[in-house]
């Protein structure tokens, strides 16, 4: 029972990171109708920037801020420089270009920093707090949960309460009508990429201290899990990313705890296949809105 509680709690903290990363995938999907397979590699670049900045300044927080900026810049460069030229005639072209971006970024990181993992320190202790003698969450897990939930709240406010958010949503749903109303849709697509890439960078930055360390492939498994989350939740649905993220986080935590770490990736893929077979649109897809 104690063990179950511990696994659930750490699963939620890990799931919050998946949810953030999946949310980034959802944001780009909604803005540009592309699954951004390059998101993991882009986020790792931003994490290296944070690593370097923290090393230079000695401050985790300046490093975190620089990861957000670097992530946003990656989004800007990849969208304006490459993805904009993907033809929308074939949904595959965007995916293939994104995979090309992954290869370039991972090779460049490998050349610059080598393949070895560099340990990255968390800003808070990672040993679990005892609650009535039961180990539950570490202070760092709590920090992750607060940041993830807070950021999602801010994004929800941005999308539902501001003019920018309204224009972002309108451009995603109805680009032609939005242009007729004077909305600069191309800029909104870029804004979606910048926003999503910054969120993805933050997710990777939060994850790395709980892993073995930073290397060019640090976000590979994060991408697979978050992609599953996004598909399970419905690529169009931000709430789906949140709930799906927490669900997959708990699933991985439970499977790792009871069956072993090697089984966890298999469990994620089994979930992905099962959802695709039963509800290809995702569990939270707004089907009635899409078909209207």
């Amino acid at each position: 029972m104690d063990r179950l509680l511990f696994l659930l709690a750490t699963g939620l903290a890990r799931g919050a990171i998946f949810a953030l990363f999946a949310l980034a995938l959802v944001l780009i999907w909604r803005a540009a109708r592309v699954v951004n397979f390059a998101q993991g590699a882009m986020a790792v670049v931003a994490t290296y920037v944070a690593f370097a900045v923290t090393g230079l300044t000695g401050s985790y927080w300046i490093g975190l801020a620089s990861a957000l900026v670097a992530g946003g810049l990656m989004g800007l460069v990849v969208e304006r420089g490459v993805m904009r030229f993907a033809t929308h005639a074939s949904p595959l072209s965007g995916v293939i270009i994104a995979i090309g971006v992954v290869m370039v970024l991972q090779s460049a990181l490998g050349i610059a920093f080598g393949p070895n993992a560099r340990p990255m320190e968390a800003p808070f202790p990672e040993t679990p707090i005892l609650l009535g003698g039961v180990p539950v969450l570490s202070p760092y897990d709590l920090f992750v949960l607060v940041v993830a939930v807070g950021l999602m709240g801010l994004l929800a406010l941005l999308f539902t309460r501001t003019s920018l958010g309204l224009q972002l949503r309108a451009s995603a749903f109805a680009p032609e009508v939005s242009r007729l109303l004077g909305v600069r849709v191309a800029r909104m697509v870029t804004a979606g990429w910048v926003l999503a890439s910054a969120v993805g960078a933050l997710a990777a930055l939060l994850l790395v201290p709980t892993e073995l360390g930073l290397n060019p492939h640090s976000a590979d498994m994060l991408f697979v899990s978050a992609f599953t989350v996004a598909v399970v939740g419905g690529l169009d649905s931000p709430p789906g990313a949140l709930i799906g993220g927490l669900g997959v986080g708990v699933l991985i935590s439970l499977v790792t705890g009871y069956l072993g770490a090697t089984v966890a990736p298999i469990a994620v893929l089994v979930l992905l296949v099962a959802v695709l077979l039963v509800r290809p649109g995702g569990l939270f897809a707004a089907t009635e809105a899409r078909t209207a």
Partner: protein
Amino acid sequence: MSARAETSARAVGAPRTARDARALRTAERTGAELHLDGLTAGYGGAPVLRGVDVRVPAGTILALLGANGAGKTTLLRSVSGLMPAASGRIVFDGVDLAEVSVEDRARAGLAQVPEGRSVVAELTVDENLRLGGLQRFRGRRLTAAVDGIYDLFEPLVRRRRAAGHQLSGGERQMLALGRAIIAEPRVLLLDEPSLGLAPRVVAQIMAVLRTLRDERGLTVLLAEQNVTSALAVADHGVVLNLGEVVADRPAEDLRTDSALRHAYLGF
């Protein structure tokens, strides 16, 4: 945007500075003249429009009539910029629009209600209206503008939190029209607003167009198959057939002269 496009975008009213932008937003806008000069356009291959000349004087309603496939939608899409013109000129308030983007045409006051009542299905009625108004108004003035549209189309007030896909056909058309006029456009393009609507709703929409022309001097280009309703409010009628203008008469003549009507409109 190229330097040339920048210049013509400014010429049709895009602001240079924040103060200009404010002045532009605050200024009362009245109708502008729209002039098509030898417009040829189409989807590759044979052109749908062939050398069309149409002049819509400021503050008048022009009914664009013709059968399915005559080129009405192509003409409207060329004017709003969704479709490039192969040759000829589109002149808005004295400025050639050739290098002006769709967005900048809209911001300069060229509003279009596309065919099929294209409300954004995923947004609420309120959000659709705010989207239409926010290039011109912000904050409290935007809210006031939205309320102004609710005064004009009262059935929408009760539905303000409903999503676009939950609306009836009539409600959608009211919303699409309200969203187009909320930013006080100078020229309004409508593509078959009466399609599939009850006569009472059609009459209400035509009455709104008449009021906008009479009170604000709005210029309206109204593409319609519902000839009777369109001619009832129009000042002028143009009949398109297979992409060419075959008649260009005062609406009064088309309304009253049955021989003319029979020859051009088939009834």
